[in-house]
């Protein structure tokens, strides 16, 4: 009897280990798969040229990924720049200042925001943000902008990742023990001093992790960005220019015009690049995380 129980215990442990390893397997499998699919174009062209050329003429067999890479980074960067202060201040307010009533009122609203399908954000962006940029903002800076732009993509994306950031930040701030706040307050610090010097410091690893998650999500967001960013493969010279991020490229073209030689392989390479960008970004944020943990003594 005892042996049977021990056997079950062992089986449970091993099978769970197996399933856990599976997630690593998926990651490798996807990476290798994408690489394999993009091999034809990598064999045909010089890798460096593919990455640094901005000529995208599939009919002529020219595939330059630079505009797509830059667009992806650009849109994501703007999104996080806009979303970060909003979500930080909101979550600081909710966890540190707001009464329970206010917190309980806002929490479900924020959760709801993150549950709205991306396509609705896309429609909202097309109907409000795009014309607003084209008519109100852009004229102050550039001669002409259709509104379908890096900025529009960034704004829509920022609205989409804000709820995610808020809910993780709230979780992070909430996990700081009450005693730590009291230690600071009892020395005569104001709430704001406590937030700035203790809460934010202590939360720094959590904040970085949250940003990493949000950025990874933003890199891959497809439909909402695709609807507002113009989809022209140029290197945007300002935030009011149209752009064409990698996910949009794949979504718009995969399955069409596959008669063109190397086209499918090029799209696979776009996916592979996106994959690489996210992997590099996550590894980078891991490194930053480690450094911060050492530096801030948290």
């Amino acid at each position: 009897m005892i042996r049977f129980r021990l056997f079950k215990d062992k089986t449970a442990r091993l099978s769970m280990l197996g399933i856990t390893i599976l997630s690593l397997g998926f990651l490798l499998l996807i990476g290798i798969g994408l690489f394999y699919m993009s091999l034809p174009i990598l064999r045909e062209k010089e890798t460096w040229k593919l990455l640094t050329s901005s000529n995208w003429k599939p009919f002529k067999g020219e595939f330059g990924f630079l505009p797509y890479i830059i667009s992806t980074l650009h849109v994501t960067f703007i999104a996080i720049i806009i979303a970060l202060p909003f979500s930080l201040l909101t979550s600081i307010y909710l966890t540190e200042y707001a009464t329970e009533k206010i917190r309980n009122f806002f929490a479900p609203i924020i959760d709801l925001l993150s549950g709205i399908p991306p396509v609705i954000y896309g429609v909202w962006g097309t109907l409000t943000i795009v014309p607003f940029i084209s008519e109100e903002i852009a004229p102050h800076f550039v001669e002409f902008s259709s509104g379908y732009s890096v900025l529009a993509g960034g704004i829509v994306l920022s609205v989409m990742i804000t709820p995610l950031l808020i809910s993780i930040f709230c979780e992070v701030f909430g996990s700081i023990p009450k005693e730590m706040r009291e230690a600071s307050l009892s020395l005569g610090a104001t709430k704001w001093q406590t937030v700035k010097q203790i809460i934010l410091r202590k939360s720094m690893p959590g904040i970085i992790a949250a940003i990493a998650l949000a950025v990874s999500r933003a890199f891959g967001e497809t439909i909402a960005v695709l609807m507002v960013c113009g989809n022209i493969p140029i290197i945007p010279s300002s935030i009011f220019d149209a752009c064409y991020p990698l996910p949009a490229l794949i979504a718009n073209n995969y399955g069409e015009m596959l008669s063109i030689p190397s086209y499918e392989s090029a799209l696979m390479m776009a996916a592979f690049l996106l994959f690489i960008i996210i992997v590099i970004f996550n590894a980078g944020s891991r490194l930053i995380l480690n450094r911060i943990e050492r530096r801030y003594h948290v």
Partner: protein
Amino acid sequence: METVNLDQVETILENSIIDIMTHSDIINPHIRVEGLNLNIGENHILKDVNLSIPSKKITCIIGPSGCGKTTLLRSFNRMHDDSPNVKITGKIFVDDENIYDEKAQVISIRKKMGLLAQRPCPLPMSIYDNITYGPRIHGAWQRRKLYATAKHYLSEVGLWDEVKDRLKASPGHLSIGQQQRLCLARGLAVEPEIILGDEATSALDPISTRKIEELFVTLKKDYTIVLVTHTLSQAKRIADYIAFMYMGKLIEFGTTDQIFNHPQKQLTKDYISGYFS
């Protein structure tokens, strides 16, 4: 000639020599609590507490768990301000200033008191920054002055020699007793007049506890010290005055000798002799 047996002599002596004192006999109290009532929601936690804390002495608040001693202590530096549903009536005077007056500045009240929590809670910064945190939030910035402050208070708690070579290191590597002394030094660095200890040694080993207790005894020449403790032996060791609380009420206040040797109330007597705890 009338003969008196020894027992009677003792009784006579007790009644004549032992001057039964109450908190209202304290002259120039540092903290004076008047008619303090505290409710958390529906629960009446502190019931009409009147208490005077003598200046530059160690006063221990004792009583069974849940009697409101920590709540009382925390009301001294208005730590209940941010708790929802807490309603406080009555007055607490610190240096003759009612800290629950509308005009009272909570920041300056808290600056007057160092709070030592149950478990040491180092802030997420280096040992050095932990000490200078208080002065810095109150506006100090000169490096030399901050360094002098850090050195002075770390020495005062006997930590300087132990940490002087790793001031920039994380306090996480210190032992828990060292951490508690660090927290004490951090509290002292804002130059308070009063030290509040909320079972400040309950998480510590006996040796660290002794160190902290010895510190309290040395510090009382400069500071008024109020400690909440549920170890009677600790109160016996270091207290000058004792306040005994039960079910939210202050039952008895007196000198350590009075409370331990001549308690006036039956409840006190029972608690001291360990009938309940």
